[in-house]
């Protein structure tokens, strides 16, 4: 009976197995058909939801752990150090050891704190994170939800992440936390404008907000090349605003150690601190993934319109390799920002956003609309 089930699963795939690296929908469709033959549609939906949930949990943990390790290695490289090198070859198990330590640590309950909100805040941050990464296209067919408002959904959901930070800062009943949360709030609310406007520039060029269609439109060339200087300006603004949105250096006054100890998560310990810490790194991943999807073609291989042979060679590299390659390249740039630029003051940060980035962005949107109307992009 059991062997029967497995063979029927394999017979659901009509194509050779290696094709799933190029089009993941073969696998998902096969599993879907197999489940539908076994049980009622209701249970099929339930089981598929559970599978996708488990996959995202695993992905979340793996990406988070890897990024913490990568950050320490990049930082060490830039400061001419070795970085973690004791646990495992090149110290690759260092973050797993750190995680085990964090799991065993005591969860300190704060007196005079609003216990309910204090415990709720890390979960709000984490849940918002999950809602965002569920809409990202990781590869061809490797896309959990494809909304027709894709990029708008991502912007809408990620605007709620700040609520977790504000609640954490207030419910800790601590001046440092409160000031850290206020700074972080002012920063994220103002830089969200720049992010949205720079993405709107690309939406004008693409003519759609659905992420799968945006990637499909880059088959003949990535938007950063197609949109002339206008797309380039939008990309630079997006990188600056995205770094600020993730509260990373040089925009990390929200947790400036010398002034505020650790900002809004000063009072958190153990796994709740780990939630904030992980969420910060996943936020960086999300910012980089959106940058690669909107400007650098997402999972679309590097194509030049007209060069058929070249395009075919590029198609041999699987789409998810392209996606993760581009994303980690953007992450590398964001990490370089953190370890090379000194921290800004809060007034410099707000001046940069409201007096420079926002006006440049507004003009840039107009220029892009003009280019698209005239048909001057290629």
């Amino acid at each position, binding site marked *: 009976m059991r062997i029967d089930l497995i063979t029927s699963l394999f017979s659901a795939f009509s194509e050779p197995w290696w094709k799933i690296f190029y089009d993941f929908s073969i696998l998902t469709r096969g599993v879907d058909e197999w489940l539908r033959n076994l049980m009622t549609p209701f249970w099929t939906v339930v089981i598929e939801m559970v599978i996708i949930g488990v996959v995202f949990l695993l992905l979340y943990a793996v990406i988070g752990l890897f990024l913490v390790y990568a950050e320490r290695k990049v930082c060490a490289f830039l400061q001419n150090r070795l970085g973690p090198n004791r646990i495992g070859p090149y110290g690759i198990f260092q973050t797993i050891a750190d995680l085990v330590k964090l799991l065993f640590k005591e969860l300190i309950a704060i007196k*005079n704190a609003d216990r309910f909100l204090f415990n709720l805040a890390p979960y709000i941050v984490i849940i918002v994170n999950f809602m965002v990464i569920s809409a990202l296209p990781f590869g061809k067919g490797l896309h959990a939800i494809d*909304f027709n408002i894709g990029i708008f959904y991502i912007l809408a959901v990620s*605007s*709620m992440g700040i*609520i977790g930070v*504000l609640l954490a800062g207030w419910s800790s009943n601590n001046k440092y936390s409160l000031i850290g949360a206020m700074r972080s*709030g002012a920063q994220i609310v103002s830089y969200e404008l720049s992010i949205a406007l720079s993405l709107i520039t690309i939406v004008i060029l693409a003519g759609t907000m659905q992420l799968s269609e945006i990637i499909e439109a880059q088959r003949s060339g990535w938007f950063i090349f197609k949109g002339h200087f206008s797309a380039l300006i939008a990309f630079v603004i997006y990188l600056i605003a995205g770094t600020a949105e993730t509260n990373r250096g040089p925009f990390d006054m929200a947790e400036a150690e010398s002034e505020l100890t650790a900002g809004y998560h000063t009072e958190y310990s153990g796994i709740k601190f780990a939630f904030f810490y992980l969420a910060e790194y996943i936020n960086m991943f999300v910012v980089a993934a959106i940058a690669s999807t909107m400007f650098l073609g997402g999972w679309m291989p590097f194509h030049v319109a007209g060069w058929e042979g070249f395009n075919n060679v590029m198609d041999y590299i699987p789409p998810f390799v392209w996606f993760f390659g581009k994303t980690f390249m953007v992450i590398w740039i964001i990490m370089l920002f953190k370890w090379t630029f000194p921290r800004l003051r809060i007034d410099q940060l707000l001046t940069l956003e409201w007096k420079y980035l926002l006006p440049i962005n507004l003009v840039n949107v107009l220029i892009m609309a003009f280019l698209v109307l005239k048909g001057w992009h290629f």
Partner: protein
Amino acid sequence: MGSNQIMFILFSVMIVVFSILTVTSRRILRAATFLLFVLVSTSGLYFMLNYQFMAAVQLTLYAGGIVVLIIFSILLTSHINQKFEEPGNKKIIFSAIASITGALLSILTILDFKFSATTQAAQEVNMRLIGKSLMSVEYDGYILPFEVISILLLAAMIASIVVAKKSGPRTDTQTLKQE
């Protein structure tokens, strides 16, 4: 019972429970958080109806905008140990009557309406459709309300800048002289 009904019941129970908690909570930031849950579950209902644009607008305007604004002002003004007093009996009775009659009126109106069932599949509301009807001057276009609302918003923004603007250096010296 299908998965649709289960989700609908889940969202409506969340909306009802958190709405009641919002008005009964004695701590102001908790009330704001419960309000956030109500707004998020409402957007879940819009997602169920396949009206994703409305759901995202609900999230970005109400959850990401207005609730953040409310929380900001609470952060600036209130202390963590502050609790509201229990309202008096008179207040409870009158607000209960007002809310129950309001709920009854809207429920009766909805039940009175003849919803005609169709066999058509749920239609996906396209971005292009929304944009075109917002900008359209045709019979079912929304260009006039759109423009009126944008003028209202502009007026509100100018007013807020005027209110928030610091007075010039002249008044500063005046206050100094008075001191």
